[in-house]
């Protein structure tokens, strides 16, 4: 929810290359267990490019074949766009999936250039990241993937995207100390979850850059066009990460 403020780099490693500014916290993942992945797409429906995180997570939730971007329009997203008459229908459809947990624990072969990889994850479409990212009912996970949007700039044109490791490298700028609740966005939610020791060691944030964050039923063309590639990247990254884990059953 909201547009994340991007990006400044911090030097958070010491001379030995060790990370020094995150505290050890209880991590999920008992020995021998399959790594647990949670994906949280953040944004606000009907707010133009802001909904990109929700749409991307929804694509992951529905799993492939992706609705579009691979030469198939057999599975269009259920969201209306354009006409006034579609608006309420659209909203009702959206409501049925907002912030509901979709358990993707059943492995699924994903077609389309992904070599039959298996991705299992719990996916949340969140319009309220403060509550969803601090939801201790979900149980521990080993990898948290957050998808959100940020305002494009001269270095990050609309439609480009980037992965940030929450604990290393580029970071999300935090709000000022004296915050109001309008500022309680993804950055605050992550910081709050971290302080509550609810974040796993591995937290990735996929940031999709956009420009149109006003009231609009649908995203701008550049952002919409980028989503299939973003989803693909997330699948590839998550699959590689799972394969790198010692206990995975992935081939």
């Amino acid at each position, binding site marked *: 929810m909201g547009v994340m403020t991007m990006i400044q780099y911090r030097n958070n490693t010491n001379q030995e290359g060790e990370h020094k500014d995150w505290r050890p916290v209880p991590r999920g993942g008992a020995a021998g267990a399959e790594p647990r992945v949670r994906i949280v797409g953040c944004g606000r429906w009907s707010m133009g490019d802001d909904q990109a995180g929700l749409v991307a997570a929804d694509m992951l939730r529905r799993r492939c074949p992706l609705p579009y971007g691979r030469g198939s329009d057999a599975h269009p997203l259920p969201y209306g766009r354009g006409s006034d008459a579609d608006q*309420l229908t659209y*909203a*009702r459809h*959206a*409501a049925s999936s*907002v*912030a509901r947990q979709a358990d993707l624990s059943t492995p699924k072969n994903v077609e389309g250039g992904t070599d039959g990889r298996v991705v299992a994850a719990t996916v949340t479409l969140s*319009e*309220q990241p*403060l*509550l969803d990212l*601090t*939801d*201790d009912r979900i149980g521990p996970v080993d990898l948290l993937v957050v998808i959100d949007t940020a305002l494009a700039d001269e270095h990050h044109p609309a439609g480009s995207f980037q992965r940030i490791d929450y604990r290393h490298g580029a970071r999300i700028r935090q709000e*000022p*100390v*004296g*915050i*109001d*609740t*309008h500022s*309680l966005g993804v950055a*605050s939610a992550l*910081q*709050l979850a971290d*302080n*509550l*020791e609810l974040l796993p060691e591995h937290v990735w944030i996929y940031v999709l850059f956009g420009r149109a964050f006003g*009231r609009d039923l649908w995203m701008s063309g550049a952002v919409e066009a980028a989503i299939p590639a973003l989803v693909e990247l997330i699948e590839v990254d998550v699959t590689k990460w799972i394969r790198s884990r010692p206990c995975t059953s992935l081939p």
Partner: protein
Amino acid sequence: VKNVTIDVKHITRVEGHGNIAVKVDDGEITRLELQIVESPRYFEAFLRGRRWYEAPHITCRVCGICSVGHTTASVKAMEAATGIEITEQTRLLRRLILNAEHLQSHLLHLYFLAVPDFFGVGSVIPLAATHPDVVKRALRMKRLANDICAAVGGRHIHPIALHAGGFTHTTDPKELVELKRRLEASRADLLETAELFTTLEVPEFHRPTEYVALRATNGEYALYGGGMVSNLQPEPTEAGAYRKRVMETVVQHSAAKHTRSPYADCYMVGALARYNNNADRLHPEAKKVAAMLGLSPVCDNPFHNNTAQLVECVHCNEDSVEIIDELLTRGLKSEPLVEPEHFGRGVGMAEVPRGLLFHEYELDDDGIISGSNLVIPTGQNLANIEADMRAMMPGLLATGMSKEQITHRLEMLVRAYDPCISCATHFLDIEWA
């Protein structure tokens, strides 16, 4: 202290942008303003020309915190303008979702905006590191309230199932059973919250004030229905006559109008006003918590608005359990939306977390909105906040507080009102060509 200049740009931990400007010269207050600098919103202007049934869905976007409250006032106004009579199931569901909004908003204010003051930290984020159990409890209760909003209204915020004439979605009884279980479990969290608040030192400040709220004729603690009363005028004013009771004026330093009443230059709405007018209607468990926190009507210390919010949380929690029981006993059924009988003028009043909210619409013969007026709780409180600050300043100056301490106390006062400045800024009346 003889000379002080306080210039707080953007008071923190309130909704929206407001400044405090105070100047004391030679011991005399020469300037004292709560400046509302948020941009106007224009909702009243762009409602014109829209169809009657669109108003609730447009006006719910006035606020992300009070979206249920705006929807409630809007559907009530539109039903008054169209002659729609709703069913008892609709009324119960609206009361349930309004309770949930009060819960989520009050909890957000108490834990995220007000409590950090008492713990001496700048925000809830450092509080999470030092007092994780407190913050987890707050999040747990807020999540429950939001989930009730989603189950009844179709979304956690900006409900989409609430329409003039009824609901377009029938809440699943299984969801209600589960929500009731969580509400019952939440009693322990609320009790711990009350115990926490007994340890917090509430500043002592008293000023005789007119407290304005709804009061129902059916014995309910009035959030959804009732007439407008006050401690100075217990005779109820019905919605259609609200303009005789709420007089809006423009002041130079505020992008939100101020209001006065026929009985006082300024007045207060909100949890404390509701409590002062309806304490006898609270659920017995809420009365116990009020007693535990030392609250009794008529309380004229605005800092106890926080206390009243907590008391209301207990009431809303218990009332929601009872409403769910009633809904389940009656049996939920799918009901068609009630259609309008005619098009005319209508006013809707509802108690939303920050106080009494009015929506007024004028419809033409085709059901197109030709005029509207929204009177927001925070706008009604602004003059009262300034009056409180003006009355409080001499005492603060006399105690020898530093400028920083005075500033902090004034900010605490503003925060105690839980103002939603974003909602309140709307006064410009644009006549589009």
